[in-house]
């Protein structure tokens, strides 16, 4: 039996994830969408925290909420005038969107429920940064030096690509 506090915290987190996600994709003001996204990302970070992945939660806030959303806001300001409302959706489009979303929901939901029902949260010792760092730099089983190096190439390439694309000429 969990503590009431944690349950309330969970409910808040879960509800905010759901609500902000829905709002992010339904609001007609693009800047608000970015804001809702930010809240959703915060809620995600909250999940990470509540599951004892503090480091991850921090990264989530730093990179996602801090970096990406800011990028979004900039680009929104660049590409649209504040206060622009997007036009109402054509119902056909909405229906097709709903179909896809609900189909996804049903199928994946079925799969998850069939497989993952009733798995309780096991105990886990919290992860210290030392271990995270060692794992990131290690070459053994379950250690990530190679991906770490590889993603640097990816990021470099993306930087170059971004520059080339964004450059005027």
């Amino acid at each position, binding site marked *: 039996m969990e503590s009431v506090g944690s349950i309330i915290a969970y409910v808040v987190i879960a509800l905010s994830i759901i609500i902000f996600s829905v709002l992010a994709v339904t609001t007609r003001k693009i800047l608000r969408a970015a804001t809702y996204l930010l809240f959703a990302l915060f809620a995600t970070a909250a999940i990470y925290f509540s599951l004892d992945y503090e480091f991850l939660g921090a990264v989530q806030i730093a990179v996602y909420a801090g970096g990406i959303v800011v990028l979004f806001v900039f680009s929104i300001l660049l590409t649209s005038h504040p206060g622009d409302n997007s036009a109402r959706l054509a119902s056909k489009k909405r229906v097709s969107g709903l179909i896809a979303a609900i189909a996804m929901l049903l199928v994946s939901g079925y799969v998850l429920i069939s497989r993952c029902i009733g798995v309780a949260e096991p105990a886990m010792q919290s992860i210290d940064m030392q271990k995270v760092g060692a794992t990131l730099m290690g*070459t053994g089983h379950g250690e990530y030096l*190679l991906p770490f190096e*590889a*993603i640097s190439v*990816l990021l470099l390439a*993306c930087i*170059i*690509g971004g520059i080339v694309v964004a450059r005027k000429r």
Partner: protein
Amino acid sequence: MDYSQFLAMKQEIGLLIVFLLVFLYDTFMPKKALNGTSVFTCVVFAIYTALCFCCCMTDTWATTFSGMYATSPAIAAIKNILNVGALIVLIQSCKWANSDEQVVRRGEFYELLLATLFGMYLMISARHFLLFVIGLESASLPLAAMVAFNKNRYESHEASIKYLLTAVFSSAVFMMGLSFVYALAGSLYYTDIYCAISTQPSAMLVLALAFVLAGMGFKLSLVPFHLWTADVYQGAPTVVTSYLSVISKGSAAFALLVMMVQAFGLVYSQVWEWMLYALIILTITVGNLFAMRQRNMKRFLAFSSVSQAGYIMLGIIAMNATGMASLMYYILVYVFSNLAAFGVISAIENNCGKVDMDDYNGLYRTNPRLSVAMMLAMFSLAGIPPFAGFFSKFFIFTGAIQQGSTAIYVLVLIALINTIISLYYYLLVVKAMFINTENGCVIAPFKSACSERLGLWISVAGILLLGIVSCFYNSLLELCQTYGIF
């Protein structure tokens, strides 16, 4: 922590060195010397390719980083094949990259190309899904930038945004699938997954595999995950299109093979065999049906490459050494054939901007060599002997049938019947060039650039020789038979 393990990754390191050299050259050389960037890149890359052929083929297989990365002669071979293809693309791109419009981005183009090639290497060698995803993203994200290279053309922008958005979407779906795999196996190492997945399939496994296949299907343009293909191929600069269509596709095919065999090999007949059946049939058929109607050459080749991907998949479904060797061989041949076709298209586009099939009417009258090259490419793609395409197609069918079930016969029969449709549209191109001469010729005679000709000569030589000279296929098959995939 043994950092010397990096040394096992000879080809990756070599490629990174090339990347760095180009990067440094482009960044620090004086303005005058920059005109030589193209030549420099081609030469360095050629040297690197040659070195790979000399050194890496003899390696026995190695697994490093506790099984996260693996290489073997077969893998070295497929990387070499990709190198050759990339080299041809590089050579063919010289004219385009040195055009007034592109010259400011020339260095970046090469860097991005090499970076994506590096990503493909990772996809092939990865034995861990994280590494794989990184490879996958490195192979696709910079490509989106490359697609957008023709800044003055609207199509280029449309193509890049389509490519990027669908790519990200598909990687989201793919990772969703991976998360299910992780839930089932508790690990992302291929070997662990292989052991952990029970032969009794669960709904989650099916969904996971469906998502994984969807993600890979995006790279490979399998129907129904192919819809971006035509638009992007059409909009992208021709060089990038050719790169997308052969190198990117070839690497993904092999990576998929490795993944399916190594991670999901045990549930072959329970789960993904049937999924692949469906995908192959759909891919070949729909690709063909769309290709029939196309008038834009690039779009046409896009759909042709969709259906070709279906044939490539036959090599995976075979699940044996013949199939694997045939798949590699198919990719090899496909590289040469498709690059020959794109070489002609880009030569013509660079010279007079025509990309419509109708513009090719009477090409033989004005530019006989180009049209012969194009014809050879078409015949090879259609699988007409004595050109290489015939052999690759025959062997891939042979490999598939070795699997032996009745269903595979039906599948191959459907594939074979589809070759009729594909022959039809390939012949349409031949017809335009050789037969339709009534209304005069649209394209005036011209002399294509040295680089284009060199690229075409290499491709044509490949088309003519790869099949008849049996050592290519023989060595691949021996490689696969001896070492297997792993």
